[in-house]
């Protein structure tokens, strides 16, 4: 059925977290999941025109498998404004504990204003010593960080250093924590897994033969605009 849709959609922004087991869900699967969440939540959804009308969802900076996040952003298109508190309540009732909206609002800025993302990387490794943290810091501070990176034309050796705004490691109990801010610009997006990859190569940590005892986790913690003010 072809539906005529004269109204311009109203954009509703959802900031949500996606953590725990849900780090293993791909971006494509997240989109599919959210499509059903917004239907169950009975929001006044705006549908695309044409032969096969669908709701439209837009996400900022897709999260890759293996990364958790406290700051995901999704834009939903509505046919009418509804109170944000109601939208938040209904969305959360239709998602599980590991994925919940923290803020729901009608945004003033486009998703593309998001340029930098902060991550906390936790290394659970046997020798989480100040010496190792020091070594990691010296690697991260090098002039150049060459790594084989997927590009549009296959794999290439790329210097990822310019894509790292800041990065520093410290010892926290039995672990090493690395705080970093990486580029989220679609044309120069840096997946934090590349930081892990560099450290695996240069510091010899996280062996693949001991997956139960040597492991890491990544949490996306904050989003920034170009001028390093918080994105919202």
């Amino acid at each position, binding site marked *: 059925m072809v539906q005529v849709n004269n109204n311009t959609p109203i954009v509703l922004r959802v900031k949500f977290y996606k953590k725990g087991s849900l780090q293993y*869900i791909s971006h494509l699967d997240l989109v599919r999941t959210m499509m059903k969440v917004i239907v169950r939540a009975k929001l006044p959804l705006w549908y695309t025109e044409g032969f*096969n009308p669908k709701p439209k969802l837009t996400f900022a900076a897709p999260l890759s498998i293996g990364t958790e996040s406290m700051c995901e952003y999704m834009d939903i298109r509505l046919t009418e404004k509804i109170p944000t508190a109601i939208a938040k309540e209904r969305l959360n009732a239709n*998602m599980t504990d590991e994925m919940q909206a923290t803020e729901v609002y009608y945004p003033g800025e486009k998703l593309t204003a998001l340029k930098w993302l902060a991550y906390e990387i936790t290394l659970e490794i046997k020798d989480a010593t100040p010496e190792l943290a020091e070594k990691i810091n010296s690697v991260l501070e090098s002039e150049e960080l060459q790594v084989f990176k997927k590009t549009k034309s296959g794999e290439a050796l790329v210097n990822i250093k310019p894509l790292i705004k800041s990065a520093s490691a410290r010892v926290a109990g039995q672990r090493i924590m690395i705080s970093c801010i990486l580029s989220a610009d679609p044309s120069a997006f840096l997946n934090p897994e590349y930081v892990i990859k560099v450290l695996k190569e240069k510091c010899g940590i996280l062996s693949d033969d001991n997956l139960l005892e040597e492991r890491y986790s990544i949490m996306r913690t904050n989003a920034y605009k170009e001028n390093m003010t918080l994105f919202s």
Partner: protein
Amino acid sequence: MQKNDNISGILKSVSKPGRYIGGEYNSIIKNKADIKCRFAFAFPDTYEIGMSNLGVRILYDVLNKESDIWCERVYAPWPDMIEKMEQYAIPLSSVESGDPVRDFDLIGFSLQYELCYTTALRMLKLSGIPMWSKDRCESDPIIIAGGPCVYNAEPVAEFFDLINVGEGEEVLVEISRLYIEMKEDGSYSREAFLHKAASTIEGVYVPAFYDVSYNDDGTIKEYRPIFDDIPTKIKKRIISDLDKVSYPEKLVMPYIETVHDRIVLEVYRGCIRGCRFCQAGMVYRPIREKSPETLCKAAKCLYENTGYDEISLISLSISDYSKLRELTDGLLEWTDDAHVSLSLPSLRLDSFSEELMEKVTSVRTGGLTFAPEAGTQRLRDVINKNVTEDDLKRTIGIAFRGGKNNVKLYFMSGLPTERDEDIVGIADTAKTVVDCYFALPKTERPKGGVSVTISVACFIPKPFTPFQWEKQDSLEELERKQKLLKESITDRRIRYTYHDAKVSRLEGVLARGDRKLAKAIALAVDEGSIFDAWDEYFDYERWVSVLERSGIDTDFYTTRGYAEDETLPWDIIDAGVTKAYLLRERKKAYAAETTPSCAEHCNGCGANKLGGKNVWCK
């Protein structure tokens, strides 16, 4: 610490980790303190396939409606995950709680097709549970099998403690209740429990309680129950009234893409047609329909609880549903506005109408699939597939005028009485479809040309069908016919795909096998067989080798043909349809005589003795 934290390193190293995490919306978590029976519903294939299975969805819901039973799901890990689990000594666990499967009380395997047997047994090994029923001790869970394969589960019977024959909604709850009761009053032991289940619950088959003896030629002499109070034949269970049986109101929502990721409405059970090769059409009798009111209510409820944008109406032949118009009209009252589309997976050539096509494709375009099954009218009469070439032409005309230009046709080769002209007839039938396209005036043809795909399966004689005694074509003969068909197709618009004859050979052995096969199956599992239904893991050479080393002559189960007076491995089961009826149908097949559908005439199949509220048999 969260459920999957300790294995995060492993999850990051395997393909599709989303298969293993659980935590899906609508999945059921219960407080262990309230639970008296933990039931693991095990599906011997991947998460994506298992999550699509309607039987699992229904039984998961039924068991979890009991407050003191917690049913959780278990799927087969992909080989990359299995390798890691074995390397790090991680036992197979359930999706919901992540608890090891071996700690459950009851484990129910759903056996959907013969090629899943090795996967099921590998899952037991991964759980640390002995593979053979006789090797299990008091602390091991009770291992149950159910599903369509149990109409002849003899090849795997000795691996299971208990087999649920027929529909499981009532039986599984009764089994669980008996387990709880005997645990509570202290009378539980494996033997006592199995004995009581076999003697008091209809539809329960405990293989260990039946001694099988053989004649010198390898055929079965007899099944002898070792107790007086257990049935000599296990009568399958059916649900009497499908409007009253519980149907899920919620579905577990997979995070990752599954095979059938949509709402599935089961419209009726059974089939009025009586195609002579079709096991499902025989063993799901008698026909029991749901009312359109029940179905419409269920559909709305499922939509609200899932958010799916597609509802699939399923049954063996949806256009035979006596109230199809009321049902589709009832659904279309709200589905269009909600942007929900209807789909029908099974359509018969003789009952396909413009109106039906209009209703099911209001949102979607694409192709249509039909199953003429055989290439000539004579052979279609032999198999009682009551469709004609005129039906095909009429239907294809409707499809083309409705904008479909992609037609898929299903056939079988190796059918009883088949001659080479029947094989060539498959190519001719496909050509007829192409010709139908060009016979249309240019303005009425769908854009983009026409494409016809013919998919040809190898016929496998199945238990409880009129063809259960037939010879299966040899591997060489099947491959010769595949080649003949390939050479008979001259039109480039016809695409030809066919099943691997080697796979069909093994399926044939397992489908009509007896308990003598168990040793070979166990050996195949020990030597690495798993996911036999997956091309990349099917190892025919290994199967040939283990069967040979176990002293099995595979011709015995395939090309031999079974005698009409021989005791069949599946004679231990009473599936409703009688042997007399199957024999009558077999004779009619050889005379190329058709049998009318149940809607026209009662053919006395015998399934009506099982009872059940239904439209056709009174």
